[in-house]
């Protein structure tokens, strides 16, 4: 029908108004892309970072370990389970670890902290944040040696340097107090005070011996996956493995509830501000459309007088809204593209406002404001803005259909 053409011509009868409205839609797209994009980027980065801090995106651990992480609870036959998990689609890495609390002591001081016992053969800088942050020395090479890699803040507090002795004391599988010595081979500095002042990496076989574990017993299998958003699906497929039936399988949301909480909170704030921006844009569109309907009262009256039905008029105005939305989106894409490109590759450096501790919710955050959109987010933004424009057109369209022909013809 001619309705499309008519509507298209109608919106361009007032070029300036249409353009201003289109720009406000475009601006909405830009804001939404900025918010959502930085969220997508930052959350993914935080989650991946959190995963590399020891527990992975998906954690396999003994039942009830989450509630009471004592070292008498342990997984058995971890090697077979690890191989089975590693064979799953989407798994980048699976590492067997023992996590626990320990007291670290030097001749000068003793400090409570936590350890992650690892097999150096499986630990790489990209699956272990602590190794990525080594500032001095190196990772120990043997899994049954006496090496230890500790946080540089912890080393400072203990007054120890590389090559020095540290005694760690912990509670073994039977509840007995056990201690062993280790010599520092490396120091790490992540920038998170909680980690630098508390954590240490120990060789897994030595720890197993100290704790009275068998060689294939451990407390955690940390699974790193290629896309953090598939953590739930991965959890289900790992839990379905027959080997894993006596273990608890958790996603990072359960294993790192503080991180999940921070992200959920931030997301909620993000949604609220996006909603407010959307509301403003919708009111803008509503205003424009209502104006254009009200000023065309006489015109609509004539159209009705010559036989156009109220329904057709309603549709006419809706199509006008549609075109306005399309123009707005195209404009939005044009103005957002360079901005997004800039945020994607360069970003805005906020390190000045952060101070020296770049952590949030217990994980390290990149102090550069960057944006990365997921494909779903792009679709959601475009569809959302489009829908908003159509919704805002509903009331003006309804008004247009209700114009009384005779009265409107009487007025000028």
């Amino acid at each position, binding site marked *: 029908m001619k309705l499309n053409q008519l509507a298209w011509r109608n919106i361009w009868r007032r070029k300036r108004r249409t353009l201003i409205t289109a720009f406000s839609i475009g601006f909405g797209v830009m804001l939404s892309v900025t918010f959502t994009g930085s969220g997508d980027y930052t959350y993914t980065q935080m989650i991946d970072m959190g995963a590399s801090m020891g527990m992975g995106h998906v954690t396999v651990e003994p039942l009830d370990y989450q509630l009471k992480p004592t070292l008498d609870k342990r997984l058995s036959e971890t090697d077979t389970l690890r191989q089975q998990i590693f064979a799953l689609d989407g798994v980048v890495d699976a590492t067997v670890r023992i996590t626990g609390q320990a*007291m670290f*002591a*030097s*001749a000068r001081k003793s400090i409570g902290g936590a350890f992650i016992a690892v097999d150096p053969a499986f630990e790489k800088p990209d699956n272990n944040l602590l190794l990525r942050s080594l500032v001095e020395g190196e990772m120990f090479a043997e899994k049954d040696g006496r090496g230890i890699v500790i946080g540089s803040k912890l080393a400072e507090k203990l007054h120890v340097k590389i090559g020095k002795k540290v005694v760690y004391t912990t509670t073994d599988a039977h509840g007995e107090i056990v201690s062993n*010595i280790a010599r520092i081979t490396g120091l790490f500095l992540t920038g998170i005070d909680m980690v630098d002042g508390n954590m240490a990496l120990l060789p897994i076989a030595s720890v197993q011996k100290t704790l009275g574990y068998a060689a294939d017993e451990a407390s955690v299998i940390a699974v790193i996956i290629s896309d953090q958003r598939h953590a739930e699906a991965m959890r289900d497929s790992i839990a379905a493995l027959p080997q894993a039936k006596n273990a608890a399988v958790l996603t990072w949301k359960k294993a790192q509830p503080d991180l999940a909480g921070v992200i959920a909170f931030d997301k909620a704030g993000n949604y609220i501000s996006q909603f407010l921006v959307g509301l403003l844009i919708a009111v803008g569109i509503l205003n424009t459309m209502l104006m254009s309907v009200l000023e065309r009262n006489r015109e609509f009256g004539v159209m009705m007088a010559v036989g156009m039905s109220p329904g057709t008029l309603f549709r006419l105005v809706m199509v006008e809204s549609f075109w306005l939305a399309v123009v707005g989106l195209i404009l939005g894409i044009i103005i957002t593209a360079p901005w997004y490109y800039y945020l994607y590759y360069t970003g805005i450096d906020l390190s000045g406002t952060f101070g020296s501790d770049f952590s949030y919710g217990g994980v390290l955050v990149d102090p550069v404001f960057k944006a990365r959109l997921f494909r779903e987010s792009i679709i959601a933004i475009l569809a959302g803005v489009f829908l908003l424009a159509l919704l805002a057109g509903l009331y003006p369209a309804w008004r247009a259909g209700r114009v009384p022909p005779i009265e409107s013809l009487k007025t000028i």
Partner: protein
Amino acid sequence: MKMLLCLLALFLTSPCLATEDNTLKERTRDILNKVDDLWRGESSYAVVSMQVKTEHYSRNMRMEGWSKGKEKTLFRVLEPLREKGTMTLKSDNHIFTYLPKTDRTIRLTSGMMMGSWMGSHLTNDDLVKEARLEEDYDAEISFEGMRDNQQIIEFTLTPKADAPVVWGKLSLIILADGYTPLVEMYYDEDMALARTFIFSGMKMLGGRERPAILRVTPADKPDEFTEFIYEKLELNIPLSDAMFSKASLKNR
């Protein structure tokens, strides 16, 4: 023939060297055990007052203690009144604390082992490890003779390679006559002094002259100290094993 003689000589001297080495070791162990038994004996009962002075607080305490063998020790606070009845039981590797006010017995966890024992400069871990010196260290006599007008013996205790101890070495100086300890020094791994135990105040205790005062001074805080003063000591008295059980803490 010459060869044979050589071999013979070798055979004769080597076991001889070995026994000499062994006797030296035995002697070292013997003396150290004697030093150790000075306050302990087979079993013991003692009344000790403890004075702690730190930068932030000072406290005085009187307590009585029993011990049986090396592995069992029980302390009960007598003064101040506020803490009267608080008990510490050390049995093998475990330490229990009993608080009469709440009627609770707490077994110290690994995290509490390095904590200070009753606010003093000793840790709970010191109480446990003290009895294991022989297990964790290689002892040797590093000096024997006159020093500062006293006939002394100096022992150097080096931790065994895999012993879970934080110290670099221990040095213990005793009087050659009567094996009375004078000083015990703890060094860190850089062989810098970490803390000093000084024994003094010879007094008649449990039937013979023994040093009655033990003063612990951390090297990095020379103004602080913990002092133990023996008021009474009875050795080799009959004590039952049941006394050193967790259950007996509540009944006392």
